[in-house]
């Protein structure tokens, strides 16, 4: 991956693969759903949930080129936008006409048409997106888990509530846009078959034509204790079977960026070893008919914490919870399984070059989550070892948890 930094502060990362027939372009803004409190030129601003996502929609629909994906689709490009916890991504994939695609995306995103009508129009589709998400039990559970995990941080989810979005006004939206959509707060990742020098030059020329406000922005960090806000909540909505989600809040602020990068891999291994089909935890629960299928485990980094969620359908909740607690406090480190899972990860990383989406996706995650400006490499994975893995998990505090139960409303 080659890196270029322009005078205006924009960073461009290029990954050229002449065997590919397409090119993927990602414009990444370091502005995500969780950025609610910040200083802009020394003035304190608080925004409700949903602002970053709103801006993603607004810019895709009301830039100088109109609806960006319509324009890019006419050039036979696939395109979309996405807002995550810590970034917004506007992207397209093309086979031809890369230069035109860059012009449309980069210019349109940076020349929005700020009118009250456009603001109101944008909200309509988002209201439906919110309603749709509320019909999804796992997304509902996720909202409750986040809300109940954090004591001082009011963040719930990136879409916001309907009321949050209704209250978005032009002035505040523009302020957030001006603050965060600046070259020094953006980077572009391009992967595929393209002329690297030409593309960097094209991007430079496009940005030279654009105007940016020069705001000083500083994120405000809110002190958050290790404890959860609430330890249990029940959601009543359509579901075939009762679902239990047990979420552990784990402080990871004392790990360095590089340690957190490694832990991202070690987490995968530890989850498989301790909760996967090879684990005693799984075998016992199956033998005792507590579960009939795999247990879902997900991890998410939010603020200075990892939220690790176990998802299960079971009618023996107390048995499951006891088994889970027991396993968490007696984690297994099996050398044979450890090596097997490292080999699996090496295979995954080694095969990534077959897909430019996989390359760009994992790279963006590395840069934003770990300040790691490299692709994952098999050579690095080969140095992973069980002793290092143990050292990361030995002192983890699993005492802070929140539980959500989803039951049917019939």
């Amino acid at each position: 991956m080659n890196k270029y930094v322009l005078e205006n502060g924009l960073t461009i990362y290029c990954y050229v693969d002449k065997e590919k027939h397409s090119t993927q372009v990602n414009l990444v803004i370091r502005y995500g759903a969780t950025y609610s409190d910040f200083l802009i030129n020394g003035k304190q601003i608080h925004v409700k949930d949903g602002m970053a996502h709103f801006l993603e929609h607004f810019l895709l629909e009301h830039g100088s080129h109109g609806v960006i994906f319509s324009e890019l689709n006419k050039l036979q490009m696939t395109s979309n936008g996405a807002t995550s916890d810590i970034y917004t991504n506007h992207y397209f994939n093309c086979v031809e006409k890369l230069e035109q695609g860059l012009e449309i995306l980069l210019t349109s995103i940076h020349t929005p048409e700020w009118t009250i009508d456009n603001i109101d129009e944008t909200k309509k589709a988002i209201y439906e997106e919110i309603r749709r998400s509320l019909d999804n039990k796992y997304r509902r559970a996720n909202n409750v888990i986040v809300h109940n995990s954090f004591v001082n941080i009011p963040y719930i989810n990136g879409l916001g509530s309907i009321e949050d979005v209704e209250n978005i006004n032009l002035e505040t939206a523009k302020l957030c846009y001006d603050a965060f959509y600046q070259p020094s707060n953006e980077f572009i990742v391009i992967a595929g078959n393209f002329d690297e020098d030409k593309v960097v030059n094209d991007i430079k020329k496009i940005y030279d034509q654009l105007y940016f406000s020069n705001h000083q922005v500083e994120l405000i960090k809110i002190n958050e204790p290790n404890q959860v806000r609430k330890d249990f909540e029940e959601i009543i909505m359509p579901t075939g079977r009762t679902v239990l989600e047990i979420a552990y809040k784990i402080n990871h602020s004392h790990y360095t960026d590089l340690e957190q990068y490694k832990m991202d891999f070690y987490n995968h291994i530890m989850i498989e070893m301790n909760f996967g089909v090879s684990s005693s935890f799984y075998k016992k629960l199956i033998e005792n008919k507590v579960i009939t299928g795999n247990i879902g485990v997900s991890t998410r980094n939010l603020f200075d914490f990892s939220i690790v969620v176990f998802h299960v359908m079971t009618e023996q909740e107390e048995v499951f919870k006891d088994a889970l607690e027991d396993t968490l406090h007696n984690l297994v480190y099996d050398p044979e399984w450890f090596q097997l899972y490292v080999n699996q990860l090496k295979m995954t990383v080694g095969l990534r070059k077959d897909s430019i989406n996989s390359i760009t996706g994992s790279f963006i995650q590395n840069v934003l989550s770990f300040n790691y400006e490299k692709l994952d490499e098999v050579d690095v994975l080969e140095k992973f070892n069980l002793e290092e893995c143990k050292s990361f998990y030995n002192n983890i505090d699993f005492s802070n948890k929140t539980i959500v139960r989803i039951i049917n409303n019939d």
Partner: protein
Amino acid sequence: MKEPIFYSIPNFHINTIELWYPIKVDMEDIASFPILFHLLMKTNYNYKTEESFQKELLRRYIRNIGVERASYGKQEFLKFYMVLPDQSVIQDVDINNCLDFFLETIYQPNIVDSTFPQDDFEREKEQLKKVYDNSIKNRNQYTIRQVIKQVDTDGFLKMGVFHHPEMIDLLTNEQLYQCFNKYIVNKKPMIFLAGHESIKSLIPRLKEYFKKSELMPINQESNCYLKRQNGPLEMVEKKPYQQSTLAVVYKIPDMKAEEQLKFFVMKNILSSNSSKLLFEKLRTEAGLVYSTNVDSYSHFGMIILYAEFEKNSKEEVLSIIKDVVHSLQDNSVIEDRLELIKEGKRINLLRQKDSFGSILADKIESYLGLETTLEEDYQIIKNYKVEDISEFSSRLQLDFVYYLEGDIHE
């Protein structure tokens, strides 16, 4: 087809083996398949626990192994597949060793006295019931089920447990074993290998292995154009959801096999990367939805248009959907979009070269006479005139409207 076929696809770092068994599913077997798939892919005769089976997958560097039911209209297959990394990524992968495991997994399952382990069987039945129970509480899956129940005048689309959940309880372990014998044992599949030259070395072994097996015929009559349904034109239900859903069904009962590509173009005008007529009308212009969807059943001459929205918009949404479908008869609406779709087909020929799965599927489906290749499609589509499509679209008949009203608001 008697001999295994090898396709050289050297620009990727994987090799695959696929075994395609033509099947004609009887009603008594519909619950067997999902359970059989799970049981076959979790253990085998030599590795009787999930743990030992998982260990072998990892030890042998098997990237992926699985089975699925693949449908091309009324022609169905059981497709077993195994994906391996090429030795340029993982030197230690032994393709002969992997083939041994693959064939053991399919032909030497964990069976004693003509039954699968009773505990495993009961567990999978229970798991399937959970999946079913959850599906009918999921708004989208429930909608699809209700629609198909009404419009499938042939009965083929209803040949699954989601339309016949009673078959789950009726299924016995003995019947499951009989299903395994009926569709797999002593049956010779179509054998496809793809990737690098190295995998060709497996061909003699595969020929030898299957030399005494019975080759199953492919049913070339995969098309079954559905008649108009005799029930009510509209059905309304209410459920406790945030959003409401409309599903609008159109059929072309007098469609012919040679019109498949016109059907493809018509559907793509409504919803594809090159043209998003339905989305533009419902979201971009009217602001009534977040997303739309068009499901196409080309072998059955049917399309289903879906929209999700807030309940007060129902009449407006339905009116727009009907207008959009009617506008497919208007040459001025189709003209530019047809050109975009033609161009899109050309671009997809290039884009396809970046996807191993897409390349392989194109070759196999063409070889088996199930579909024409992307290149063949393009050669035909590029000569279509506007009138070809408008005339075809004029034969669409409104068959059914299903409205699921969500009666919850937060």
